[in-house]
């Protein structure tokens, strides 16, 4: 009996026992779609973080206060006395001391309340220099960024994030208008283009960017300390060199040994790594849940295949009496189990992928479908179906025809 013939007979048998086939497939469908969705959730969270980090700019070094053993590079030092100063930033910008740093943007961070007419809005304040726009790879949707002169004079000018601008000015262009910050009127000279980060409510689009001196007056920062210094290396190749140069410079300036460093330098890669390490726990947890649901699906498949084979021992006996060899019988059940497993797998993948499209807006979490996890889930379901379907069938195939025929 040829494979084609066996395959045809397998599909026929699946169709002949519709309800049983559906029940068998149900376990596989649930298992596979939940694997796709749970792994997709973990993957989606990782991708989102990666997106956010790459949205910071390119070839970026992020210098933060505090030793490298304290994690969370971006926000390190927030609220605590900073060990990084404006002088550090100025030294880094020196072409001769740090030749591989293309641009340096020191930033302070804080938060304050802005008032435009009747409207109040609390947002984060970023104090920085002219280089910020390039280093952070941002663009303006209208107006202009502040000039070096305005930075020097700590002029009362502000550039608003796109969300901030629309919160404060529902009508007309914000550029040229005035916002009051802590009683000081400031003129809005520009609005940032949206960062394009997919996540909603990203703080990247809700902030007020001002000259660093101005921000210090507003948020009351101490002396010349800064919270983060962003450095853009000239290219990906010079990133490592820039890292070494800045490390050496700061150790020298602060007069500390490498072991006692009071600052840390992260690259985007290292940030991604740190974030992934955190996400790993989530992914493992979700993967565990998915594996359990796949296992439960597999047990369902096993159960129904066992019942189905037991039910059909008489059929096996008859087929043997009419000339089927044990090999042909085993093949028949192999094909049936594979057809069921594959069909269930395909439906499961369909439901999983549709779910991955439908779910994110509902739960406000991105879901990205992982091809590897999908293939592994199908493989597992197939293996379970085949294993548990073929084992009892090959046992039945070894019975003498008469024992099989007599069984009830």
């Amino acid at each position, binding site marked *: *009996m*040829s494979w084609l*013939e066996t395959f045809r*007979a397998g599909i026929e*048998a699946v169709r*002949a*026992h519709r309800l049983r086939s559906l029940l068998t497939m149900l376990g596989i469908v649930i298992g596979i779609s939940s694997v796709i969705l749970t792994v997709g959730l973990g993957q989606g969270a990782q991708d989102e973080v990666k997106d956010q980090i790459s949205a910071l700019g390119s070839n970026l070094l992020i210098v933060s206060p505090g030793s490298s053993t304290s994690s969370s590079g971006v926000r390190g030092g927030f609220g605590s006395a900073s060990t990084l100063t404006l002088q550090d930033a100025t030294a880094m910008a020196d072409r001769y001391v740090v030749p591989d740093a293309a641009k340096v943007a020191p930033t302070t961070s804080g938060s304050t309340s802005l008032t435009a007419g009747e409207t109040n809005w609390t947002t984060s304040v970023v104090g920085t220099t002219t280089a910020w726009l390039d280093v952070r790879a941002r663009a303006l949707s209208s107006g202009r960024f502040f000039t070096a002169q305005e930075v020097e004079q700590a002029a009362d000018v502000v550039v608003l994030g796109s969300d901030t601008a629309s919160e404060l000015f529902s009508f007309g262009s914000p550029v040229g208008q005035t916002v009051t910050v802590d009683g000081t009127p400031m003129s809005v000279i520009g609005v940032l283009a949206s960062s394009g980060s997919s996540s909603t409510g990203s703080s990247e689009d809700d902030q007020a960017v001002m000259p660093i001196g101005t921000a210090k007056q507003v948020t009351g920062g101490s002396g010349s300390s800064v919270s983060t210094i962003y450095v853009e290396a000239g290219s990906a190749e010079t990133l490592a060199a820039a890292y070494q140069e800045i490390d050496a410079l700061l150790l020298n300036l602060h007069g500390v040994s490498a072991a006692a460093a009071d600052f840390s330098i992260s690259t985007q890669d290292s940030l991604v790594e740190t974030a992934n390490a955190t996400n790993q726990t989530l992914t493992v947890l979700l993967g565990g849940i998915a594996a359990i649901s796949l296992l439960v699906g597999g047990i369902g498949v096993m159960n129904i295949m066992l019942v189905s084979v037991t039910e059909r021992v*008489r*059929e096996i006996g*008859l*087929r*043997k*009496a*009419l*000339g*089927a*060899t*044990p*090999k*042909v019988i085993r093949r028949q059940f192999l094909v049936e189990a594979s057809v069921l497993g594959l069909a269930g797998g395909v439906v499961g993948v369909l439901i999983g992928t549709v779910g991955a499209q439908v779910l994110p807006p509902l739960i406000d979490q991105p879901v990205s479908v992982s091809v590897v996890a999908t293939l592994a889930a199908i493989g597992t379901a197939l293996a379970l179906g085949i294993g548990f379907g073929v084992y009892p069938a090959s046992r039945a195939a070894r019975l*003498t*025809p*008469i*024992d099989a*025929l007599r069984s009830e």
Partner: protein
Amino acid sequence: MTASHLDPPIIELTGVRKTYRSGSIEFEALRGIDTGIDAGEYVAVIGPSGSGKSTLMNLLGCLDNPTEGHYRLAGEDVSEMSEAQLAEVRNRRIGFVFQQFNLLASLPAWRNVELPLVYAGMPRAERRERAIAALGRVGLSDRTENRPGELSGGQQQRVAVARALVTEPALILADEPTGNLDSGSTADVLDLLDELHASGRTIVLITHEHDVAARASRRLIISDGRITSDERAGVTP
């Protein structure tokens, strides 16, 4: 049918015993059977219920193995064959008709009939043609697409007969084929067996009804696992 003693007997049983074991209980269903059946004979095996008739037929059909003794089918010792060889022997040489019909409920009549041809490796188109021809021979040309559930008992048994003759086997084994049928259907099925016999096939018919056995040219009477009488038509009434 002529010169039958010149040909080797198609069936040769020597010292065949069959013991069933269920747990510690043993039951000897066949207690030493020695007989031969020539090609072209029509043999009825008669005996009361539980005498071992079905056990004997299962051995003749290579559906089960004897506990002791030898069975030669067309000169070959069956007990030395592998599973695959036995499957081929059943497929090529033997046609079965069971009391319970043993049709697959999910398949239409012609698909049931073509099953032995599937295992013989015949191409699909030819199988269909021969299955439909076989159904024609049993008078069911208009029922080829019906599933067994849509047929009467007599029609189902005729489908089973069509399945038994579709491979043109030399030997047809029928175990109480009329046991579940009314008298009209019984006559139909027995007429079919007569026809098959007339076309040269060897037939072994198992029954406990003497009027059914009367059609055969030879009667083996079996009781408690032994052959107690072997009568040929015309020799003994």
